[in-house]
Structures are given as C-alpha cells and as structure tokens.
C-alpha cells in the first residue's frame, strides 16, 4: 500500500506535466492563451506540497524521516551472471525532499504569477507557460527520484526545458547560440555524471541510492578506492555542468538571454541548485579525495565569478555571476563537509536570488528593457516596493546579520575554516581565504549594484544613442511588441513607474522569506534552526582510506565516537535525539559520526562558528563600505581606478577570457577535426573503393598498349600480306573473309575426295 505522502507527491509531480500537455496543444484555443491553467495547476501543486511539508517537517519533527516507494520499471529477467535483474523507478520523501518540494513549487508558482504580468502581450505567451510546466515537472522529478537512473533522465529533461526557455526568443541569433551552448555544456557535464553512474552500476547492478549506499558500506565495492573517488568526482561533474561550476560555468551568464522570469526560476533558484542537491544526495559515497576536489572547485568558482561580477554593466549579468559565485559557495560547503550548511544556503539563496532576479525584471520592465546599470539610477523614488524588496534580498546575499543569507553563508564559512584546520592547514587554508574574499567582493558588487540602480540621479540621458540593440545580453523582449514604445523615452523618467501587484506580490513574498526568523529563532546561529536540525550531515559510507589520518583524528574524534550510540544503523537518528536532549548549545552538538574525520569536522565547525561570524561580518562591512566609498561618497573614481589597473580590469571584464579560450581550443578544434575526418572519409576511405576500379583500368590500359604494338603489328602485317598477294591474284581477291573460307572448304573437300578414293583402293 502506497504511503499517502507518496500519492500526494506523485500528484504534485504530474500536475505541471499536465499543464505542459494542455498548454502545448491548446494554448491558442484557450482564452488568455491558457495562462490560468498553468497558474491554477501550479497553485494546486504548491498547496499539496505545503501539506506534505506540514506533515513531514512540522508533524513528525524527525531528522531520520524517510518514506520510499518504487516499482519495477524494467525487468531483464534472469540475467546470466547476475541473476534476476530489474530496474526500479521510485520516489523517496525525506525532510530535504519535502523542503525542496515546497521551495520549487512556491518559486515556480510565484514566477508563473509574475510572468502573467511580465510576458503579457508576447506572441508565444501560452508556449512560455507550457515550457515552465515541463521545467517544473522535471525539476520535481529530480527532487523526488530515489535512484541515479531516473535522476539522470530528469537531469537531462531540465536541460531540455532550460534549452527551450533560453531560446524562447529563438529569432535572436544570440539566444539561439546561448541555448545551444547551454545544452552542450550541460551534456559535457552529464557525460561525467553518466560515467560515474556506470561505475557504480557495474559494481552493484542497481541504480537505487539506498542499495548502492548499503553495498558500499558493506564493502562490496570490489574495485580500488581510486575508482570510488573517480565515481564521486564524475558524478560531481554533473553538478559542475548543471550548477555552472568552473570550468563549465560559461553557459550560465549567456543563459540570461532568456526572459527574466526564467532566469529567476531556472538559472538562479532551482535548476542550477539541482547540481548541489544531487551532490548532497550522493554525499555519503564521496571519498575524502573527492571532497577535496569538490571543495577546491567550489572555492575557485566562487572567487572567480565574484571577481567577474565586479566589473559587469548588465544588471542581469551581475546577478548571474553572483549566482555562480553562490553556487560555488554551496559546492565548497559540501566539499568541506558542511553538508547541512550547504543545503541550507541552497534554500536561502533560492529565495533571495529569485527575489533579486524578479526585482531586476521589474526594473527592466519599468525601464523599457534597459539592462545597463550605467544608464539607470535614482529608481528608488519611482519604484519604492521594488527598491525595498531588492535591498532586503541584496543584504541577504551580502550576508548581513538578521538575514537568512547570513546564517547559511556563515555556517559554510565556519565549515571551511574547520576543514582547513582538520586537514592540517597548508594549501587547504586557500579555501576559507577564497571564501571570505568572495564574501567581501559579494558585498562590494551588490552594494555597487544597488547604488547604481536606485540611488543618485537618473543617467538615462547619458546613454549613447547608438547603444540600443548592439549590447550583448539585451533582453530579447526588445524583439517583440513592447519595443515600439521602448526607446523613444530615454532622458526622461516619466516612463518609469512601479510595476503592478501581480509582479509586486512575488517580490514581497520572496523578500519576507529572505529574513532570519523563517529559519531560526537565533539570528546569529542557523545551526539552531529547524533546517540544520532536520537535514543533518549523513555519516559517510566510505571506509576511511587513510589510516594515519584516522589515527591523528582519534585524539578529538575518539571523544566524539565515545558519545556515539551503540546503534550505528541510523547515526543521524541517534544524533537527532541526542541533540533534542542536550539542547543545541551542548558540547559535541550536531550529529554523531562513526567516521572520525566527519566527527572532527563537525566538532571543528562548531568551534569555529564565532570566528566565522566575526570574519564574515568584517568582510561584509569592508565590502559594503568600499562600495559606499566608491559610489556613494565618490571618494574614489571607479573609471580612473579601472584605468590604473587596466589589465586586471579587462581580465575581469572579459570574464577571464574563458569563452575565447574554449572557442579557440575546443570548438575550433572539434570543427577542424570533423572537417578533416569528413575529408578522410570521402577521399581516403571512399577513394580506396573507387581506387580498385581505377587500378583495374590502369592494368587494362597497360595491357592494351602491349596489344597495340603486337596485335596491331600482326594486323598490319596481315594487311601487308593481303596487299601483296592481292597484287598477285587480284582477280579472286574480294577482300571478304568468307569468300576465302568458301575456297578453303572447296580445297578441303577436294583433298577429302582424294583421300576417299585412296580409301576405296
């Protein structure tokens, strides 16, 4: 009997699909192109997932909560060498799933609402909602999947919907390029993920998370530990592609070619976070080496994109790079073992970043599709609501205390510090350093953005007249209906006015969700919040390969191990109860781990909590202060600074030249290879085939030339002979062979007669 939650979640999963099917076929026939269908169905889905959320999170307040259901999808029969083999598809609901369900449906619903205002008048209005539907469906699929195969399927499906939505204005070549780039880049990541899945499958002949985890825990992984690390890293590659981690981050900024609500839903809140979610799912099989790799990738990504974001002019690109940077944070968090913190940041980030994007959408809408911050300014008077919500979200992103962002980010940074300490310093201190550095930069560029957009005086009139269309990343909105009244109003602000409620309400809701009290009673410690309690760090199933380290950890780790309950089957459960008893402030707070390394990390993270708070607040002050100094008090002229450090400026402005590098090496290279192979195919391989024929002709010809001299010689000789004899006996010389033949026969018969006569005698 299916658990009622499962049934509900299936309904939630299928409602967006239904909306897609209905809209894709009938949007032209329905009134208002059927947007109410999308909104209505999503509303229902959200309501149901709220009930799930309530049941799971509020009613059973249990870190170990888990219900699962699966069915046989493929039956391979009795496979030789393996025995009966089936591929199962299934759904698992635990705390994380429930939270993600609520989050995804909520943001999707808000974006649907918002789009009814933002996309109004588009000629493909209905199709837009259809695409949102298929996206939501596949995203929910990722969230609910209980096995690697189905998550891979939905993984690619979100790739598809992202492809469709980025290229929503496919008439624009830039959009078409961007969608292709996004899909292909993601595919590169997916290859890695797929190989990782294959490694695990080839060992256990199953795709299910639980089976795989139990098998590894039981030490059934026969290949070397290196393979397990490889599997982890390869699976992480999927996340690298989807969550736009370095070096596959290049697609996300270009993805801003899509309509802004899409950027908010897919490229900020949900899809790009799926990578982090997935790594969280497989967290337990990641070996320490794999985790190091992940941590470094995350840190580098966070830092790099932060530096890029500083110099961008396009309001959406700044947000895009900050998204990449924040995703880098989450990945780093996972890498350093701060599992709960990373997923917590995933949740908070989803809300405030969606708020930021929708806000920027509102601004763009109001500014008639002006996206360049250099020509904005002074909007706070015209758009108070947008201003308020946008600034709250900004502060959350920058990590100001009392915001949600503060708690999660701080937890991650604490984890990073702990990690560095546990790993024994050295190179590993790079990670927290990069983390704090990008925290500072985040504060700076967000401050810069808010100031440029909302404060000061309007700079629309400064915009050079010729920059209407040629700006990269100009919202494709310009390419349809709205355009006609778009650009004739530069230089005056009477065109700019607050957006309608249908677009304002989502902003307000999201801004509210960006504050601390939603998540925790203590504004300073997210760890005391319900999230980090309900989504505890699971204990790894990998046997710690490095014995000496384990010994080294025994000093502190051993003490924690001593506290561990005898029941090691569900360490997290035990931890949950233990925590409930001791209270959050108790020493050794956090789950109890069987693995000394994890135990050490958890301990250290708690220990470093306040250090992290001080450092990050310092960074925040530094960043925002710098922003104010530069843009508010005008003490430093950004232009001249840029001139002073021109190379650095250009390096950052051109996004570290990654696009150029890839274009020059990979793209050009593969095109060259393909052309040369095609040439090889048509000239060499096929040439050999035709060559056989040619060779035969050559032989025949050579032989022919031989014939020419010998045979023709004979012929000529015959001719000569005939001629001379003809001169003699021209009378009987008719030149007809048959005549000669007749004569010959006459002669023969003559001889024959003579012979017969001889015979008679």
């Amino acid at each position, binding site marked *: 009997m299916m658990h009622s939650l499962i049934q509900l979640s299936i309904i939630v999963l299928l409602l967006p699909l239904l909306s897609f099917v209905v809209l894709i076929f009938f949007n032209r026939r329905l009134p208002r192109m059927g947007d109410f269908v999308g909104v209505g169905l999503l509303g229902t889905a959200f309501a149901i997932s709220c009930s799930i959320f309530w049941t799971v999170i509020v009613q059973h307040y249990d870190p170990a909560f888990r219900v699962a259901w699966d069915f046989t*999808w*493929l*039956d*391979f*029969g*009795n*496979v*030789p*060498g*393996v025995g009966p*083999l089936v591929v199962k598809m299934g759904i698992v609901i635990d705390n994380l799933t429930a939270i993600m369900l609520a989050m995804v449906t909520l943001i999707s619903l808000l974006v649907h609402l918002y789009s009814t205002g933002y996309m109004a008048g588009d000629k493909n209005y209905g199709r837009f909602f259809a695409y949102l539907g298929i996206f939501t469906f596949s995203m929910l699929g990722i969230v609910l999947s209980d096995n690697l*195969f189905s998550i*891979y*399927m*939905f*993984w*690619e*499906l979100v790739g*598809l919907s992202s492809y469709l939505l980025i*290229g929503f204005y*496919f*008439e*624009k*070549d830039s959009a*078409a*390029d961007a969608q*292709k780039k996004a*899909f*292909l880049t993601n*595919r*590169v990541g*997916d*290859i890695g993920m*797929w*190989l990782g899945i*294959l*490694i695990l*499958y*080839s060992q256990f*002949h199953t795709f299910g998370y639980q089976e795989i985890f139990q098998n590894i825990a039981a030490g059934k992984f026969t290949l070397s530990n290196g393979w397990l690390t490889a599997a982890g890293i390869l699976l992480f590659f999927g996340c690298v592609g989807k969550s736009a981690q370095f070096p596959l981050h290049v697609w996300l900024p270009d993805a801003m070619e899509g309509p802004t609500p899409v950027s908010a839903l897919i490229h900020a809140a949900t899809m790009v976070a799926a990578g982090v979610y997935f790594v969280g799912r497989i967290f337990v099989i990641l070996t320490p080496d794999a985790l190091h790799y992940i941590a470094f990738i995350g840190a580098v990504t966070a830092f790099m994109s932060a530096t890029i974001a500083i110099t961008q002019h396009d309001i959406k690109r700044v947000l895009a790079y900050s998204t990449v940077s924040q995703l880098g944070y989450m990945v780093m968090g996972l890498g350093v073992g701060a599992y709960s913190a990373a997923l917590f940041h995933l949740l908070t980030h989803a809300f405030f970043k969606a708020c930021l994007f929708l806000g920027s959408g509102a601004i763009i809408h109001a500014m008639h599709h002006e996206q360049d911050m250099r020509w904005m300014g002074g909007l706070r008077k015209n758009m108070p609501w947008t201003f308020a919500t946008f600034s709250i979200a900004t502060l959350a992103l920058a990590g100001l205390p009392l915001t949600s962002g503060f708690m999660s980010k701080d937890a991650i940074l604490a984890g990073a510090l702990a990690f560095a300490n546990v790993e024994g310093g050295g190179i590993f201190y790079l990670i927290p350093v990069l983390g704090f550095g990008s925290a500072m930069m985040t504060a700076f560029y967000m401050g810069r953005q808010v100031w440029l957009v909302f404060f000061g005086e309007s700079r629309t009139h400064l915009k050079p007249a010729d920059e209407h269309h040629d700006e990269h990343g100009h919202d494709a909105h310009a390419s349809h209906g709205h355009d006609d009244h778009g650009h004739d109003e530069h230089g005056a602000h009477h065109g700019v006015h607050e957006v309608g409620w249908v677009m304002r309400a989502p902003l307000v809701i999201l801004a509210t969700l960006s504050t601390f009290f939603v998540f925790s009673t203590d504004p300073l410690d997210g760890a005391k919040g319900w999230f980090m309690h309900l989504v505890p760090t699971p204990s790894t199933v990998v046997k710690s390969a490095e014995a000496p380290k384990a010994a080294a950890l025994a000093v502190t780790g051993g003490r924690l191990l001593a506290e561990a309950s005898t029941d090691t089957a569900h360490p997290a459960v035990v931890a949950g109860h233990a925590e409930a008893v001791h209270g959050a402030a108790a020493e050794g707070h956090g789950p109890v781990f069987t693995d000394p390394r994890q135990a050490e990390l958890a301990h250290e993270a708690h220990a470093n909590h306040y250090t992290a708070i001080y450092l990050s607040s310092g960074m925040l002050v530094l960043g925002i202060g710098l922003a104010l100094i530069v843009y508010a008090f005008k003490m430093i002229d950004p232009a001249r600074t840029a001139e002073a450090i021109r190379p650095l400026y250009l390096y950052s402005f051109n996004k570290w030249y990654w696009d150029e590098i890839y274009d020059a090496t990979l793209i050009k290279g*593969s*095109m060259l*290879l*393909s*052309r040369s*192979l*095609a040439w090889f*195919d*048509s000239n060499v*391989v*096929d040439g*050999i*085939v035709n060559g056989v024929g040619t060779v035969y002709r050559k032989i025949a010809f050579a032989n022919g030339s031989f014939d020419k001299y010998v045979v023709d010689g004979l012929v000529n000789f015959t001719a000569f002979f005939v001629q001379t004899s003809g001169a003699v006996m021209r009378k009987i010389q008719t030149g007809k062979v048959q005549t000669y033949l007749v004569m010959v026969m006459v002669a023969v018969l003559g001889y024959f007669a003579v012979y017969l006569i001889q015979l008679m005698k």
Partner: protein
Amino acid sequence: MLSLIVFLPIIAGLIILAVPASQKQIIRIVSLLAAVAQGVVAVLIWRQYDPTMAGIVAAPGGSPVGSFQLIERLPWISLDLGSFGPLTIEYFLGVDGISITMVLLTALISIIGVLSSWTIQKQVKGYFILFNLLSTAMMGCFVALDFFLFYVFWELMLLPMYFLIGIWGGPNREYAAIKFFLYTLFGSVFMLLVMIGLYFSVIDPLTGNHTFSLVAMASQENYVPGSILGPGSAMWRTIAFVVLFVGFAIKVPMFPFHTWLPDAHVEAPTPISVILAGVLLKLGTYGMMRINFPLFPEVFQAGLYTIGVFGAINIIYGAFCALAQQDLKKMVAYSSISHMGYVLLGLAAGNSEGMLGALYQMFNHGTITAMLFLLVGVIYDRAHTRAIDKFGGLASYMPVYAAVVAIAWFASLGLPGLSGFISEAFVFVGAFSAPTTRPIAMVSVLGIVFGAAYLLWSLQRMFLGKRKPDAVYDIETDAHGHEHIHFHDWTGKLDLDARELTMLVPLAIIIIALGIYPMPVMGLLTASINKLVTVLAPVAMSAVN
C-alpha cells in the same frame, strides 16, 4: 502465419502486375492495403507470441526446433548428390524474441514506406512491384531459420533495392546503386562460402543428415568433429567468423565498409531511404546475432574487444563526419552510421544489458531514423534542396514541422523520455559493466556530446534565428501584417499536410511511449537475449571443446 506475413506483399505485387500501369491510384491503394494487412498480421503474431520462450537454440535433447514459435517447417529442396549425401534445404520459418521485434519494425516501416511513396510519379507500377518484392525479402530474412532460405531472401533483397535506387534515385543514382550493389554482393559471396562450409560441418541430430537449419547450427554439439568448421579447427572457424562478420558488417554498415551508405541515401528517394535506414541496416546486426555469433561463440568471445573498438569508431567517426556535412540528408546518413555504432558496442559488451540495449537500439533507430528521413523528404519536396545553410528561421513559419523535427532530432540525440535514450543508456551500461569493453565505453560516451552537437547545430541553422540571406524561400507579409514564407514552385500546404502527419505522428507516439515505458518491446527480448548470452558465454563452449 509467418508465410502469410512474408508473402502478402508478393501477392499484392502480382495483383499490381495485373493492374494497367495507368491506374496509379489503384496500384498505390493495393500496396497500401497489403502493407496494412501485413501490419495486422504482425500485430496478431505479436499477440500470439509467448515472451517467456527463449528461442535462439534447440534445447539439448529437446525439440529440434528449439523454443521457437509459429514454426513452419517443410522440406523444400532435397537432392541426392550421390557421394555428397542428400542435400536437404528446408522451408523453415519461426520467430523468437530477436526476430519478432524486427518483424514488427519491418511491418511498421513498410506501411510508412508505402505512404511516403505516394508522391512517386515515375513508373508507379514498376516501383510498387519492386517495393513489395523488397518488403517480402526483408520480412523473409527476419523469419527464416534455414540458412539457405535466409541467403535466398538476403540476395532477393539486393535486386529491388538496386533498381529502386538506380531508377527512382537522384542525379548520381547509377553510381550509388552500383556501389550499394557491389558492396553487398561482395559481402554475400563470402557468406555463401561459409554457408556451404557450415552445411558440411553440421549434422541434424534427428535425421543424421547435413542440414542448413540455423537452430541445429546454433548448438555446438551438432558440429561434426574434424569437419572443416567443426570444433577443433580453430583457424577455419576464425576465418569463417571474420568473413561472415565482414559480410554483415557491410550491411550495418561498419567503418570502413560504410561509404556506400551516404551515397545510397543521398541518391535514394525518401521512402527508399526510410526502408534502407529503417530495416536494411538492421539486417546486418540481426544477422550477427542470429548467425554470426551463436555459430562461432568462442571466436566471438575472442573478438569482443575488436568489435567494440569498431563500434566506438563508428560512433565517434560518424558523429564527426555528420558534424561537417552541409547536406541534411547526408548528415542524417552519417548519424545513422554513428547510431549503428551503439548497436555494435552493445553487442561487443557480450552481456545481457549490452545486447538488450543493442537490440532495443536497433528497433528505436528504425523508428527514429525513419522519422528523420521522412522529415528530410518533407523539406526537400518543398525547397528542392537539402543544403542546411539555405534555410533559417523556419520555426517561425512552419511551427508544426519544427515541433515534429524537434521531437525527432532530440530522440536521435538521446534525450530521456524518448526511446533513443534508453537503448543508448543500456548499451553503455552493458559495455561498461563488461571489463573488456569498459575503456571503449569510456571513450565512446563522447559520442553523446558530438551527437548533440551536430543535431543542435543543424537545428539552429535551419529553424532558429532569422531567414538566411540566400535562403530558398521568400518572406511575404499578408494583409494582417503576419509574415508568411513561400517556396518557389511549391503549391501544396506549407506546413505538414495530412498525409505527412499520418506518417509522422504514429512514429512520434511510438518513440515517446517506448521512451517512457520500454517494456512492451523489451519484454519480448529479455528471454531470448539472456538465452543468447548463455549460448555465447565461454562456459557454453567448454562443453564442446
């Protein structure tokens, strides 16, 4: 039952023979009815089929026809060759999991092919007679269980194909037809030799005579020790395997024997391309699974790695060549080379997942590629060109066409939820699970990206963006300010018309349905595949040698 499905088209061909050539419509309708009837019979067969019976090989000591189904077995030719003993050739039909899927595919593709032949105007009568002959030959190949019978059908297939390409093809058709003919003939000549060798090496356990029955050949204990291909004569068995493999590989087509395919496709008319890619290519891999591998399992085991490497070459090489093509049809042709590479890779895995993926990929590639070629034909009818760069922005003007194209293209690049993905996925699963082919699998996974690359790129160049300056159509704005395009000398419906939809929509539905729940087809396969794997497994040989 099987005879019916095999010879229905021939009967239709005879009827058409009686119809005066001027009655084009009647001729078309007759062939359509035949194809539909064939489809109905195929479905009946499918209903009767019991997926739990494995087939492949006669159970030792069990029934001589193994667990094949719908058996039809009659002595066909039996001569007394004196010193050579009696020559017995049987009319021996039967299906197991491997063949029934192909039978279903063939029936489906034949219907599609007849429908898409509607536009053929030149010598309709001759065309449809040849077409029906071809469809009989294909169906026969898939159900024949007597090697000689198989060979007859196999050869019978060449002739109509040759004429269909050579007469109804494009400008360079003679070259393409000859090339196709010579290549395949080259392959089948070797097959003949091996066939005779096998005949003299195999004894039917019941009659004690030499036999052509594939069922008898498939079980190693029927081989006469000391005979030319019997156990022990490793060298000859290897040679026979290689020769046979080449014969089938030409049909697949496997690098480096693939160059006939692009030419043949580019020159062939649309329905023939559909048949060619949809069914004929499958005959190569089907032959491998039915004849080549089970008859020489130990050689197969030894050759796994090589086969896998060739599969990988097909995948990557085909994808790269496709990336460079300017002619849309040529690109699709190379794409099917690449996709057949997956089949080879799956076979090389030698385990159930891989083989299952391979066979499923054969089925899906049949439907998907048929769709691709139909779509190419659609645009070619309108624009009279296939140059990818001569379009641009079509999606705005032919939305339905663009949508269907998107389905086909994404199915072909292996998007989850469409059937192509599952087969490719399990090919990789199998290839990776087998230690032999693991490195190959790692390399050929790259095919996923390059496949996506050329498909998406062509999609963008033809459908997205704006009309290219040198496009083959003009944009006109009507009274309401809506933009329309029109192709020169194309009077029909701009977007897909009813006939084209009746061809494409069922295919699309099949592709999507099998992408979501593959069991309807996979369920037919599993028993046979598992049996096949056990037959091929090295242990099976140790019993004989």
